[in-house]
């Protein structure tokens, strides 16, 4: 038969770089009490204490609560338990002393974890910095056409063609002209622009407007140029590749690492070398390595993979709002007049992704 039971539960949260907030509960057949303490991580010193009785025995037990403050300034170090038993256990209450010891030793363990976390964070930051540095040097080593060429935003969405976009096509073209782009490419989701309609836009705005598609495949979104078939639903990448080949078009993996490096998934150890082995890269002609809707880290990762695979790299804003036009673009060597010129230029590999107005 159970005669007595006691449970102690301690939880520790890191409040800031140097402060731990500790909450302890002691609950047994006789007593129930709680403690909230804060402890400095750097020297394990008790900064504040707050105690509360939930159940007690004598009418005088509450006198103990105020006396807990005598332990403020104590450090969790050699001789600490003796000091707590002597000061808190004798002057205040031995049950509070008991709980305080548990809280303080828990803080000591949590400080160890904080130290591990900080070291891991420093290592990770260093690794990311190194990676960014190396990828930036890779990009810098591309063809030197930074001061000349023809700049097109290869990836924009308009409304209502793309339900997710709020950008009116006319306003979007006006904005592209205003910021000095040489052209834009309408890449609405699974939507085929009529060639006559695109031509009419070119004439009306006296500006290079091109048409492509963004098609969703089983391997993610693909920017497709030169394909006029209206594809609905999700198509297998291999099948899309076949169709693009038959049409003599060009296929670019759009934002290939969107979401791959965020929120813990990035800690799974996906290296550029491993990423290069993804089957989808066998089916594409180029990689979009500058996309306005992903993080810089994801773009840099895509650039590293493109470089490793020897695939050309493109840039596009992925604009869904007028104001997003031209964040990134692709700089070509030659002037482009229409879709056929664009495909020829894309196949030549003589272009580079650029940060246009980021």
């Amino acid at each position: 038969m159970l005669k007595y039971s006691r449970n102690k539960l301690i939880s520790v949260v890191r409040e800031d770089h140097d402060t731990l907030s500790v909450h302890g509960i002691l609950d047994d057949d006789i007593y129930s009490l709680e403690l909230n303490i804060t402890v400095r991580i750097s020297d394990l010193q008790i900064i504040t204490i707050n105690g509360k009785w939930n159940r007690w025995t004598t009418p005088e037990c509450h006198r103990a609560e105020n006396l807990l403050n005598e332990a403020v300034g104590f450090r969790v170090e050699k001789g600490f338990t003796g000091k707590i038993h002597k000061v808190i256990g004798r002057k205040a209450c031995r049950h509070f002393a008991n709980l305080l010891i548990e809280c303080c030793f828990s803080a000591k363990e949590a400080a160890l974890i904080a130290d591990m976390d900080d070291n891991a964070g420093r290592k990770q930051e260093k690794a990311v910095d190194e990676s960014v540095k190396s990828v930036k040097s890779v990009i810098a080593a591309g063809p030197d056409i930074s001061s000349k060429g023809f700049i097109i935003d290869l990836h924009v969405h308009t409304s209502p063609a793309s339900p997710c976009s709020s950008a009116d096509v006319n306003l979007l073209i006006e904005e592209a002209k205003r910021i000095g782009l040489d052209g834009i490419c309408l890449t609405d989701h699974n939507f085929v622009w009529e060639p006559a309609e695109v031509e009419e836009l070119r004439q009306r705005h006296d500006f290079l407007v091109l048409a492509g598609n963004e098609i969703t495949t089983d391997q993610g979104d693909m920017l497709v140029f030169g394909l006029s078939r209206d594809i609905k639903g999700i198509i297998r990448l291999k099948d899309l590749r076949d169709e693009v080949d038959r049409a003599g078009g060009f296929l670019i993996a759009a934002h290939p690492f969107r979401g791959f490096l965020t929120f813990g998934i990035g800690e799974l150890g996906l290296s550029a070398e491993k990423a290069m082995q993804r089957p989808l890269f066998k089916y594409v002609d180029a990689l979009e390595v500058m996309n306005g809707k992903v993080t810089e880290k994801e773009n840099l990762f895509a650039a590293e993979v493109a470089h490793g695979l020897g695939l050309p790299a493109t840039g596009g804003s992925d604009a869904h709002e007028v104001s997003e036009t031209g964040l990134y673009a692709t700089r070509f060597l030659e002037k482009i007049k229409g879709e056929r010129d664009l495909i020829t230029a894309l196949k030549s590999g003589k272009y580079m992704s650029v940060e246009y107005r980021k």
Partner: protein
Amino acid sequence: MNNILSYKRNRSTCVEQMDDYTMKSYCRFQDTFTEAYVEIMVCLPDLEITGATGEFTRSLRNECLIDINESLKRVIGVRIGSGMLKILKGLMGAKTDCRELIFMVEECCHGIILAFTKKKLLFSPKDEKEKHEYYANMVKENIRMYNRCAAFAPGSSFVDKT
């Protein structure tokens, strides 16, 4: 920072009456780094520890992962009561660097004491005035309690009555 829990500790101590002459007290401990268990057997009425076993199944500290039963054997024969903490620390401290092991044995011993305290407290009066007298008498009859905690310190209503 992020308000996410960075460390958690659970400790549970229970006392069972095995038969008229035997009590078992056991402590289970689990935290981010450690999982451990200690059990002591105590004979009545002299509250002598007659058996002690335990195991650390997980620990960050190597000193706790060696065979702890050698250290635990040293507490067999110790009587639970005043001065026991010093004795336990002295006996086990010579054989183990695993601080948590000593603490768990202490917890088991406290459990035994509190199991008897609970029994005594079940008979304390409900009436406030009678309650004061009850505790005042307790201090009077057990002078070791005087000035041992805030409730029994000078200035408390129990001590004023003595």
